[in-house]
């Protein structure tokens, strides 16, 4: 089976580049899988888990926002933050979740702080999700 390359571009570094069998990406309109020979495609990323499959093994990353483009067997993921399993601290993420939930209860919905807390909560949930699934 032919492979598809993944390149992760960040404003301050270029991270993973490698070949994979298939990749699952959390897009704004739902998670989607990409195999080799995919049609050219652009979408926005929503907070979620990026999964890279290669020969039976899988690498998982928490990703929070950005873009993905698929073009000529190359997936480019443009994002500001992406975290691997070992970069996440579960207790810190839990604390962040509680903090964000508390803040959201205290502030009005139109408030800028509310939206900030919402973003923080989403990030924390993705991280927790990733960590919890590690054992599965």
């Amino acid at each position, binding site marked *: 089976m032919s492979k598809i390359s993944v390149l992760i*571009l*960040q*404003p*301050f*570094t*270029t991270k993973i580049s490698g070949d994979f069998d298939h990749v699952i990406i959390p*897009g*704004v*309109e739902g998670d989607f899988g990409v195999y080799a020979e995919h*049609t*050219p*495609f*652009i*979408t*926005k990323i929503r907070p979620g888990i990026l999964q890279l499959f290669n020969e039976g093994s899988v690498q998982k990353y928490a990703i929070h926002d*950005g*873009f993905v*483009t698929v*073009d*000529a067997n190359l997936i*480019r993921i*443009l994002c*500001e933050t992406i975290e691997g399993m070992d970069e996440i601290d579960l207790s810190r993420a839990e604390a962040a979740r509680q903090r964000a939930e508390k803040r959201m209860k205290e502030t009005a919905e139109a408030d800028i702080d509310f939206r900030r807390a919402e973003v923080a909560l989403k990030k924390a949930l993705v991280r927790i999700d990733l960590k919890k699934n590690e054992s599965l």
Partner: protein
Amino acid sequence: MENIRDIKIRIDSIKSTRQITKAMKMVAAANLRKAQNKILKARPYADYIELMLKVIRFKNKESRHPLISEPEIKGKTAFVVVTSDRGLCGSFNYNIIRQAMEYISQNPQADIICIGRKGFDYLKKRTDRIIKSHRDLFNQMDFSVSVEVASFLLDLYLLENYSQINVIYNEYKSVIQQRVVLKQLLPIQPPEDDTIHPLDFIYEPDQDTLIEELGRKYIDVEIWRVMLESSAAEQGARMTAMDSATDNASELIGQLTLKFNRARQASITTEIIEIASGAEAIKS
């Protein structure tokens, strides 16, 4: 003739100044390398965002999205002045400020956003149009810092009736050369080459959302790039300035050492003459 001791003190003080300028040159060189590295690392991301924006724009020539098209109603204008936080970097800040003053005299209505302490310190005495000043950003050169600046500018543009935002900064050409650049930041200028990208992408969700998001990201990386360029240029300017300061100190030390030796020689000669004439006096 100057006192030998005075000359000696001056030589010592210049020597310690030379040590400082030499150290500052080394530090600037190290920081320059760091900044250059960051510029290189930022390039793939920045280039690709720019390319995507070009592709989407090419496909949507009619799009009237505010980020990429000239607004119909002329609103306020603002410009961003990027200087350094610290001095001792030659004419680095002077060049920017001179251009900025020229711009102000041509556009007296423009509001000013300062990045860097030096520009703010100078301009605050001469104009009351500064609406925001970011200081000490260069100490912690982090992408999140530039995102903050960028979102402030985007809010100005999208929500507060500004129709044009320009930026003026030093571009890094080489260690000894900086170039002052005045550039339009918003609305995003049309790309220079209109080459057709061969691929027809499928867009999700829709093109306007993507233009908005890509446009925002583009401004984020533009600010990041501007700050990195400016910081590299600053370090380059400081390196050259400190290098010539070190050279000047060495030259001065050379001259003073000569003077010192002459004075020492003269005092020895006087002393010998005194002894000789004393001996002569006893003999006779």
